[in-house]
Every structure is written in C-alpha cells, then in structure tokens.
C-alpha cells in the first residue's frame, strides 16, 4: 500500500509541476549549465562541457551539436542563451534551448556567438560520439559505434572499453570491438587482426591493408590472411548485389514487356507505340505530383490507378482509330503504330517540354535497406520489384480466373473458333488492348521512380521489351517473366567486364542467335494452333 | 552453261503425263512405306503406330473422322512434320525422314492442301509455270526462259482443268472450285510419282466433282494417288482401296464395301451406341 501511496504522491507532484511550471518558475538546471559554458574562459571550456555531459541531461547532445556548429548564441540584453535555427540574412531565427520553443527572429547584432576554438571542436566530436554511445536507442548506439571505426584514439580507448562492459546489444558490441581492434591493429597488435577478419567495413579493410604493408612480417602475414577471407565474403556480397541489380532491371523489363506480351499474344499485332504508353504513365505520375505539391507519397499512390487509366484510354483510342482497320496486316500495324509513337513523342515535347522532368521520390521509398557493410539494397528498386511481381500476379489472376481471361485465351488460340462460340472478338480486342496499354502505364509509374521522365523514355525500352517477348515466347506470361528476369540478370552479369554498352550488344546478339535456334521463344505454343 | 540448259530442258523431251524418269526405285515393292510412325503434340498423340504402304500406280482413298491424323500423316510424308519415331520410305531408296520439303517435292511427291493454296497475286498461267518441273535452284530460276514447249505444256494443262479463258487473270479472282482445279493443275505440272490430295472436292459442284473423279482415276496407274476425302459419295465413285484412319492409326483397310461393313468402322463413324 505504501508503495502505491508514495507513487501516487509523486505523480501528483509531477502533475502539479507540469501545470504550474511558469507560475512556480522553478529554475531549470540546464540554464545554469549553458550560461556556465557561455561565460567560461577558453581554459575552462572543457570543464564546462564535461559538466553538461555529466549532468546526464537528455538535451545535452543537441546543445553540444549546436555549439560545435556555431549555432549557440547569447542575447546581449538579457544574457539568455539561445539556439540559432537559421543564421542567414540580417535577422536570425532563434529558439529556446531548454524548451525548444521558437522565439521568432532577432537581429544578429543583438546576439553574441558562444565562442569555440578548433581544439575544442575536435574533442567535441569524440564527446558527442560517446554521448550517442550511451544513448537509450540501440540503433543510435550502433550508428555511433560504426562512425567511430577508424577514428579511435588513445583517449577514447578507456571509455570505449568501459562501454563494452556495459553494452547489452550484440550488434553494438561487435561494432565497438571492431573499432577498438582497428586502433590496436594500427598499434601493431597481431591478435586484434583476428577480430577484423570477418568485417566488411571499408575502414577495417583499410587498417588491414596498412598492416599488410607493414614491416612487421608476422603482422603482415596475419593481415593478409584476414584480407583473403574478407575478399571471399566481399565476392559473395558483390554477387548478391549483381543479382539484386539484375533482378531489379529484370523486373523493370518484365513490367515494360508484359503489356506487350498480352497485346502481341492475343491480337498478333506489334504495338510500336507501347513505349510511348509507358511514357504517358510516367508523365501521369509527374502530373499528379504537380497537382499535389508536397505530398509525393500520396501522389505516387494515386498515380497507379491514374497511370493505368490514362494509358488504357490512350490504348483504346489507338485500337479504335487505327489498329482495327488493319486487321490481318501485322506489318502495316507495326508501321502505323510506329507513326503514333512519333506523334505522341512530339506531342509531349511540344505540350510539356523537350526537357526531362524529375519525379520526386517519396521519403518511404528513398534510402536503402542495409544488409551489411558491403551490401545495401536501395528501397526504390525493392519497391519496383515488388510492384512488378504484384502486377504479374494480378495479370495471372485475370487471365486464369476471370471471364475476360478465358475469352482472351480462347481468342489467342483460335480466333475464328472463339468467334463462332459467341465470344465477341472485337470486344475482347478492345479490352485486351486496354489492359495491355494500362499495364504499360503502370510500368511508366514505376519507371518514373528509377529514371528521368522525358519524351524519349519509351524509346529506350521498346526494343528491350520486344526482345523479352520474343525470348519468352509469344502469348505466355510465365515466359515473359522468366525472360525478363533472366535478360536483366545476364545484362548485369556481363556489365562488369564488358561495360554497359557492350553488355547490351552481347544480349541483343544472343537473342538474335537464340531466335534462330528456337524461333518461337523459350516457351512456344505447340501443335496446330501455333501453325496459323 | 549448256549443262544447265540441258537440265532445264530435259523434261521437255517427255510427253505430258508420260512416266517421268525418276530416281525412285520401286522394283522391290511399294512406292510409299510407313512403319510404326508416332507423333505427339504436347502429349496428344496425333499419329499412333501408323503403318501404311502404297503400291506404285495405286489410287488409295483415306477416310476417317476429324482428328484421325490424316493431315498430320501428309505433313510427315512431305517433310513438314518430323515424327517422334518410325520410318518413312519413298521407294526402296529414299528415306524421307532425312529430307526437307523442297527435296521431297523435287523427288516426286506433290501435295494439294486441304485449303486450296494458290499464288493469288500471280496469274493462272504463272501459277502453273512455277509448278512446272524444272531446275529449281536460284540461278537457273533467275535465268530461266520460257520455251515454246513449256508454253504448250502449260496450255495443255490449262485446257485440262478448264481455265484456258482465265489464263492471264490473277488467281485471286478464281472461285473456290476453280482454285481447287488450279491446284490440281499445278500438281500435274510437277509430274510427281506420288500425289497427295487433301479434300479435292470441297466446295465443288456435282459436275466439277465428276470431272475431278475422272481426272484422278485417269492418273492412277501411271502415278500413285492418295486421296483424303470426307465426301463418301466421291470416295465410292473413285475408290478401289480404302484405308480408314482412327486416332492416328489404321482401323481398317479394304474395298469400300468391305470397310463400310466393318463393325469397328461403323462404331467409330456412328458412335458407341450403334
């Protein structure tokens, strides 16, 4: 009971404090610390800083950071220490360091900068790192320990070791140990080499490289051994990274090609304007972002249906106005749609601009997923990959499970027969074309996150998309998926030793040769239906 | 050059419809011999252990329900489709499975398609000209000159298929029946040893059918003819030997009367209940 009563009492006191802070005007201990720092002569600054650190105040890091950045000032009239938020122009924007309250602007003449010299600034970095190392959040501690790698000096060894004793998180311990080991290897400690043997961090490798070049043969040997094992690991990571880039490029190819695969498979027509439908999707994303300034994430999400619709409608217009008049003349269709692609490109150049447009990447899509020191996966590519798979799965569902899919498959296999079974081939054509075009629009939305949006966007992908469709086999979605992913990966595998351009040429030549061997692609349709 | 001329002119020495000197060796038996042939498309067995022999000079009719493998069989003989297993011999010397379509055609197997296929942009005369037996390599074709004898030969066939009046019209304007006849005419120009004729009377009038029957029976004896047909009346009017195909293999063989009384055949044609 007594415990409850006591805590209740303290709770009440705390509440009372909160409500009556201005009234009670109780002195914040931080104020004194800051004033102490501001007034300290240069010989005693260090003491003042230590006082702030020792206070254990959570705001200490912010204060010291501001101090290091010349953002700590004193108001000449009142002697109050303030944070400078913005020090451009005549009037500076200031805030109360104790409450964080914005105090508005004040002429810079009324402010006095709290002086700092370079010796102190150098020490401040280590002190702040130690502060971070003692932070409550293990992620902050880990980042701080990582930053310390290669920066440890004699003065930091003792506090780091102390920290290591207390540290509970294994990840943070590893980092601290590595940071200490780098220091020790630099000092010629052979045993410390062992600790670094598994590290992929570039500073660890730099330390080992230095050690390998040292005069101490034992140390050099140990370092070389460690380096070899690191090299092995790096190779693996490099391979994983190549695979990642390959799959990412592949999923872009799949997105770009899958709409083409549908229209080509079902209607036997080559839509040369497919690339421009992709471009329309990308421009739609840009347009939606223009309409919703400051909300790139929401705009991107809205662009998905919008891009699909815009491209699908454009597709329907193309189908109704041109393609339907060219039934049974695939080569003429190819030419006519090429003409349309020229018109669409020029239209964008004239109406919007011949220059590229940048589409903003929302925050949740930027940055990367860190796997280890040598491998981090950029988030935007990861999202595009996932998006490609979702689109693929959705198309599979449409083809397998819906009435439209059934009709489409029937028309693909035997148009005349399907028609005599009462399937309205014209309607199927329109819907398929709209679907294929819409998917192109989706590809454009995704591409806008990876490359510049410009009038030539579509052209860059059209030949690759055709190659994917031809490689995978017409009328086969799985073929398109596998062809797209494998072509993307092959391209990335070739790039390191052949260069980007040569890799592309090799892939093109490979496909040209492949078509000779298997004219109907990886997964051909067999039997009678394929003959017609 | 004279060698080439000799080659192009050689066939003019022979009278029309006279037996053509052919490398095909039929002294030891049939002109066409198929044994244990199997073909499947994606697991579907189109031809299943098919055995068939055609004698030199024979007129054979092949009947069978849809999907019995009749067209696939012709595809195999002409080199369009390669069987999974089995052997196909033309005479006793030529293994057809090692040859491609043009070689097989040059060797003396002519084919008329199920759907009449003529070159619609060319005139009737030109269609026959292309079919004419000649050296069909590139340069001889480029330098080929129409000789009076060739012209006569084509005119003769034109007469026979009743298209003399239309000789300079593009083949595209012909009626369905006329196209069938033109295609038969092209077959005749090729002077094959073996004619494969897929549904020759589809879309023909009663009269035209009679003439076709006459023509095909007159060819038999000098050339071997294999006719695939659905029209039972037509088959009865020309057939001596009839082969019934079912599910890719031979169900029955014999005269028309024999096969039409065969209980198996009746079952296939009239359904299980019958």
């Amino acid at each position, binding site marked *: 009971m007594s415990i409850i009563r006591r805590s209740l009492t303290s709770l009440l006191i705390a509440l009372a404090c909160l409500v009556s802070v201005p009234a009670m005007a109780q002195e914040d201990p931080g104020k004194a610390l800051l004033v102490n720092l501001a007034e300290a002569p240069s010989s005693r600054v260090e003491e003042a800083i230590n006082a702030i650190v020792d206070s254990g105040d959570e705001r200490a890091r912010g204060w010291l950071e501001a101090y290091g950045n010349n953002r700590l000032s004193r108001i000449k009239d009142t002697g109050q220490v303030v944070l400078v938020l913005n020090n451009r122009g005549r009037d500076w924007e200031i805030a109360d360091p104790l409450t964080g309250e914005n105090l508005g602007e004040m002429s810079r003449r009324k402010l006095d900068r709290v002086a700092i010299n370079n010796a102190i600034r150098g020490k401040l970095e280590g002190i702040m790192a130690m502060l971070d190392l003692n932070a409550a959040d293990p992620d902050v501690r880990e980042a701080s320990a990582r930053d310390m790698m290669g920066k440890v000096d004699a003065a930091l060894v003792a506090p780091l070791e102390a920290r290591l004793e207390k540290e509970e998180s294994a990840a943070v311990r590893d980092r601290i140990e590595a940071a200490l080991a780098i220091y020790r290897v630099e000092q010629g400690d052979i045993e410390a080499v062992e600790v670094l043997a598994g590290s992929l961090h570039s500073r660890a490798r730099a330390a080992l490289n230095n050690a390998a070049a040292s005069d101490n043969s034992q140390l050099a040997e140990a370092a070389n051994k460690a380096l070899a094992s690191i090299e092995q690991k790096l190779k693996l990571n490099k391979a994983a990274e190549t695979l990642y880039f390959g799959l990412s490029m592949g999923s872009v190819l799949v997105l770009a090609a899958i709409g083409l695969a549908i229209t080509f498979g079902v209607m036997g027509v080559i839509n040369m304007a497919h690339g421009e439908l992709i471009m329309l999707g990308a421009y739609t994303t840009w347009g939606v972002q223009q309409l919703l300034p400051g909300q790139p994430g929401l705009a991107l999400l809205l662009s998905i249906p919008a891009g699909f619709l815009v491209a699908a409608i454009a597709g329907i217009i193309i189908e109704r106005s041109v393609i339907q008049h060219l039934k049974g003349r695939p080569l003429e269709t190819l030419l006519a749609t090429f003409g349309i692609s020229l018109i669409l490109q020029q239209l964008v150049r004239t109406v919007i601009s011949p220059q590229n447009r940048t589409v903003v990447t929302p925050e949740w899509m930027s940055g990367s997923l860190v796997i280890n020191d040598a491998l981090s996966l950029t988030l935007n590519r990861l999202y595009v990959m996932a998006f490609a798979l979702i689109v693929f799965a959705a198309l599979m569902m449409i083809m397998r499970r819906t009435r439209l899919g059934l009709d489409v498959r029937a028309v693909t296999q035997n148009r005349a027969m399907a028609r005599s079974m009462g399937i309205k081939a014209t309607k199927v054509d329109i819907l398929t074309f709209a679907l294929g075009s819409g998917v192109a629009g989706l590809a454009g939305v995704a591409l806008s996150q990876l490359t510049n949006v410009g009038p030539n966007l579509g052209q860059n992908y059209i030949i690759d998309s055709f190659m994917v469709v031809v490689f995978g086999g017409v009328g086969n979605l799985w073929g398109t998926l596998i062809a797209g992913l494998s072509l993307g990966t092959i391209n990335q595998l070739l790039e390191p030793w052949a260069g980007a351009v040569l890799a592309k040429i090799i892939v093109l030549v490979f496909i040209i040769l492949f078509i*000779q061997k298997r004219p109907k692609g990886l997964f051909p349709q067999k039997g009678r239906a394929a003959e017609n | 050059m004279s060698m080439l001329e000799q080659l192009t002119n050689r066939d003019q020495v022979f009278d029309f419809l006279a037996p053509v000197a052919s490398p095909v060796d039929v002294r030891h038996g049939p002109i066409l011999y198929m044994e244990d042939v199997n073909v499947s498309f994606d697991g579907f067995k189109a031809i299943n252990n098919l055995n068939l022999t055609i004698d030199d000079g024979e007129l054979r009719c092949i009947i069978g329900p849809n999907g019995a493998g009749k067209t696939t069989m012709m595809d195999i003989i002409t080199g369009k489709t390669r069987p999974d297993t089995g052997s196909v011999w033309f005479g006793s010397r030529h293994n057809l499975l090692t040859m491609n379509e043009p070689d097989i055609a040059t060797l003396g197997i002519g084919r008329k398609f199920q759907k009449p296929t003529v070159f619609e942009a060319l005139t009737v005369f030109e269609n026959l000209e292309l079919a004419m037996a000649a050296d069909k390599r*590139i340069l001889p074709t*480029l330098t080929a000159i129409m000789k009076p004898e060739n012209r006569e030969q084509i005119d003769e066939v034109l007469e026979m298929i009743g298209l003399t009046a239309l000789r300079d019209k593009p083949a595209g304007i012909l009626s369905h029946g006329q196209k069938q006849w033109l295609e038969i005419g092209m077959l005749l120009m090729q002077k094959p040893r073996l004619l494969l004729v897929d549904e020759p009377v589809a879309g023909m009038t009663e009269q035209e059918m009679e003439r076709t029957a006459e023509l095909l029976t007159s060819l038999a004896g000098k050339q071997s003819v294999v006719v695939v047909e659905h029209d039972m009346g037509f088959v009865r009017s020309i057939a001596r030997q009839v082969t019934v195909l079912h599910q890719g293999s031979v169900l029955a063989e014999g005269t028309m009367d024999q096969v039409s009384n065969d209980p198996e055949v009746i079952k296939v044609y009239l359904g299980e209940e019958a």
Partner: protein
Amino acid sequence: MATSTTWLLRPLQERSTQLFLGILTAALAVVTILHLAMPEDSALHVSAYTVTLLGKYLCYALLAVAVDLVWGYLGILSLGHGAFFALGGYAMGMYLMRQIGDRGTYGDPVLPDFMVFLNWDSLPWYWHGFDMAWFAFAMVLLVPGALAFVFGYLAFRSRVTGVYLSIITQALTFALMLAFFRNEMGFGGNNGLTDFRDILGFNLRTDATRLGLFIATGIALAIGYVICRGIVTSKLGRVSIACRDAEARTRFLGYRVERVQLFVFVVSAMLAGVAGALYVPQVGIINPSEFSPLFSIEVVVWVALGGRATLYGAVIGALLVNYAKTVFTGVMPDAWLFALGGLFVLVTVFLPKGIAGLLQKRRKAPEKDRSNPQEATA
C-alpha cells in the same frame, strides 16, 4: 551466255522501265545543264548545294528501291536496312579518311585524326587496304552483303518471318548503332568519319566533283533499278512473290524458299551499301546515327507511300518524303515528326497501295470499260 544475261536485258524492253530511265536521264540532264549553263544570278540556276541535295535524295531513292525489293516482292519487312546503308557508307568513309593522308589536323600520314586523338599508335587491322579505291569499293558491296548473308542464312534457315523478323532486324541495327558509338570500335565513335578531302584524286569541295557524284548516283540508281526490275520480272521474281504469299506451298513445289529469300536479301543489302557509299562523299560525314532504328523505319514509309512492289513507287516515295522533310525542317522543325507520324498512319490505313496504286487505278479505270464487253463475249 545469252541466256544468263537475258534476265538483266529483259527490263530494258519493258515500257515502264524505259519510261523510268527516260525520266531519270532527262532529270539528270536538266539539272546538269541548269547548273553549268545558267548564270549564277539567274532564277533557273541550280546551285551546287541543290545538286548535292538532289544527289542525296537519289541515294535515298536507291535505298528505297532496295527495301522495296525485299518488302514488296519477298514480304520481308526489314527494319534494319539502314545498317547496310551505313556499312556501305563507313566503307566509303574509311577510304576517304585514308585519302586525307597527312593533311589532317595532326598531320599523321597514316592514322586518321580521331585515332591520333585517342593515342592509338597503329592502324587497326581492319583499316588496312582502305587506302586503295578498288578494295574499298569492293568492301562497299562485300561488307553489307556478308552481314546480310550471315544474318539471313541464320534467320531464313530457321524460318523466322513476319513481325519476328522485322523486330530482329531492328535489334540488329540497334546493336550496330550502339557498337559504332563506342570509340574502341575504331570508327570514330560518336563523331564518325568526316573532314574528307578528295575522292579518286578529285577535290570533294569543288562544284565539278559534286556534279560528278550527283550524276554517278543517278547512274547507280538506274543500274540498281534495272537489276531489281530484272529480278522481279524473271521467274525468280515470281517465285519471290510465291514465297511472300504462300511460303509453304512454294516449298512443296520444290523451291528452297530460304535460299530465294537469302539471295534477294543479299542483293538488296548490297544495293543499300552502294547507296550509302554514294551518300557519304556528298554529305561529307558518316556517323552512327545512320544506324538508328528510326532511319530504317523511315525508309519503309517512303516505300509505303510510293507503293510497295512497284520499285518506281519507292523512288517517288523517297523523293517526296525527303523533299517534304527538307521543307518542313526548314520552316517549322517541330511539325516534322507530327507530319511523319501522321504519314505512317495515313498511308497504312488509307493508302495501302501508295501513290503507285492511285496511278494504276487511274490508268486501269478506262481500260476496264473497254475490256469488259470482250470478256462477256468470251
């Protein structure tokens, strides 16, 4: 021997070919006279610039004839003929480069300027021989011919036709474009080959040489036209049409379709190479943009506009479209792509037989009226 050349002489007895050659000769003569005889301030004077421009059009016309030969008569829509054109052009460009000798900016007697710039110390092996005109001119035919042979052999043997073939021809020229953009290829990379001085000893910058090149192009077009016409009026031409319309049937008649296709394709590629070779000295530069898929597909629309499978239609189409291009890009450059794109659509949808089709319809209409009663009596 008489029989082996008949196919080539046959077109000369045709009225349409005589008409074509007559008009071409007259045009060459008129331009030459107006250029040489008219004083420069006369309204009728044809400037050296115009002569060269017309020469360029004639090169395009020859290229269009080559494309029509394969597309019109063989049904092969090549979207990569620009590659053969460009290869012929590069072969000529290499010859012209070697002719510069030590007159280049860097004054190297053997190495072209761009190689000196790239710090190369010797000529790559494939540049040898191009200092000799006969060798270079042979390469103008052989390089495009060899590429067409290898590509065609592989493609036709595996019976790749239709849109598939079109797409891989496009990929072919695209791959070549990327390759020629690379400096390491040794063809001047981005900038290509330029700064030519003289050809066969004649200074390229004089009006007389320009006129000579224009006339040479006219003659090349005439010869190319007669060769194509000779092929299409021969039995081989009819076999080509047979391959175009019913490939399987042709095969069952005993013709080797893939060889027919290969032969005509290679001839066509060589003609394209000649067109490219004549183009380069007149425009004074060859660079990888000639390989661009856009150029190749543009050629196809010239043929489509003029009328497929007529040969003379290809010439009309090439001249018309390129004249329009010159006018448009001068007056309102932005509108050109709209016009070109619109042309693609209009021709394919509304004018499938092209201008030649319109001309034929006109000529045939009165004939039909006369022939109808005859047919009725027959």
